[in-house]
């Protein structure tokens, strides 16, 4: 299952709810303002770093760049994808849930 999160974890609780419901083997893709959850050293970063290793976490590159977030600022477990990679993630997972 693929989860997409598009809101800042500092503004809305959707990212938290997503983490509460994601299962091992699932993937989470951070897009739009959701990419702020991918950054090291923030008030939410520890929770992300401590997550079950079976959970794959991705962030959308174009949204990171727009917001001035460099690859060196990302939590280690985060992989960066472009829109094509977003499409691949949707194709690879049976079902997608948008955490709106």
């Amino acid at each position, binding site marked *: 299952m693929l989860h997409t999160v*598009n809101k800042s974890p500092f503004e809305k609780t959707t990212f938290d709810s997503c983490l509460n419901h994601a299962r091992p083997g699932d993937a989470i893709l951070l897009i739009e*303002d959701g990419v702020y959850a991918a950054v090291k050293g923030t008030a939410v970063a520890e929770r992300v770093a401590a997550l079950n290793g079976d959970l794959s976490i991705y962030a959308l590159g174009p949204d990171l760049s727009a917001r001035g977030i460099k690859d060196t600022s990302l939590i280690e477990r985060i992989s960066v994808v472009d829109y094509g990679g977003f499409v691949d993630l949707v194709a690879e997972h049976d079902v*997608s849930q*948008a955490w709106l």
Partner: protein
Amino acid sequence: MKFGILVNEGPYTHQASDSAYHFTKAALEKGHEIYRVFFYNDGVNNGSRLTVPPQDERNIQNNWTELAEKHDLDLVVCVAAAQRRGILDENEAKRHSKNADNIAPGFRISGLGQLIETGIECDRVVAFGD
């Protein structure tokens, strides 16, 4: 693969329509089929031909219209959501005694059944919203 796209927010105010557009383009480039793009909630506002964004900004309605022309996309605006928000085609305007319509080229107005059908027919449905 056959994709269905759901857009729940209007143009400019939220990034949803932009994200959906870039996703749709990328899916087409990878050879996937886009079965339908369904506009619901405030998403129906993407289908107004009356928008005039600043010249140095993207034109979201034009982007969708051009992508639809190029790839023969089915852009469907939900009729119930559109009525609430004042998006009408010629028929709808006549039916409700309104003296103008504002639907953009490439968009068509239809029922919510078209969203369910999208879920039934597609391998994947991807939603973009607030």
